[in-house]
């Protein structure tokens, strides 16, 4: 990828670490000079992707957050060794599935890739002018 890596940060897969991920996104947003609205949208999307990894993937391994400032976009990759799942069985709450739609609504591009090792990479892009 042609561009600048802003950070590679790992967080342990605990929900209490979501706030740390959001503080990290605030720093990334400042460095990428995002406006307030997009910075907030990015905070939500990253928090959602991490929450999904923590709550549903079954993985006990760290989640890595990589931010890249590319020619045309700010790219955040959230990677973890678990599978991407929409929800655990038996949650019984029909509105628990809002995280993914929210990510898609807030970002310019979202891709979810299965890595050869069986892990997941969620890539969030905000296009830059």
């Amino acid at each position, binding site marked *: 990828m042609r561009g600048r890596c802003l950070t590679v940060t790992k967080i342990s897969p605990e*929900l*209490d670490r*979501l*706030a740390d991920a*959001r503080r990290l996104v605030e720093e990334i947003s400042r460095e990428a000079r995002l406006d*307030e*609205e997009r910075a*907030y*949208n990015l*905070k*939500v999307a990253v*928090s*959602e992707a991490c*929450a999904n990894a*923590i*709550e549903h993937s079954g993985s006990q391994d760290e989640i890595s957050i990589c931010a890249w400032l590319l020619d045309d976009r700010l790219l955040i990759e959230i990677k973890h060794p678990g599978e991407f799942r929409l929800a655990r069985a038996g949650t019984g*709450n029909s*509105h*628990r599935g*809002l*995280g993914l739609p*929210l990510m898609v*609504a*807030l970002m310019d591009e979202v891709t979810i890739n299965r890595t050869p090792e069986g892990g997941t990479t969620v890539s969030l892009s905000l296009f830059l002018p």
Partner: protein
Amino acid sequence: MEALRSEWEGMPLVVVHGEIDHANMADFARALEPLVEDGAQRLIVDLRDVTYIDSGGLSVIYSVLRRLPEDGWLGAVGARSDVRRILEIGGLTGHAAFRLFPSLDEVRGALAS
């Protein structure tokens, strides 16, 4: 996040401070659900001091809306523009039992009419 239960004009009022996310959404739920279980028809949630909300908070609100009696509503007061955007994208502003108010004055106006 802090959620403090109070009362306003005879209605239950919950004042929330801080960020509502997947880590503390259960606390947010615990502040609201007993009110519905106790039979509240309408409740007010003061969001003026809420700096962050995502699908965790949205799902708690949806869960409360589902359990309100017919004609009941949850009024969210003072949501900041970023928070309001999430409430809109999350579909709450289109929900019949969800009302968005800039301040308690507007709630008073809605009750009077």
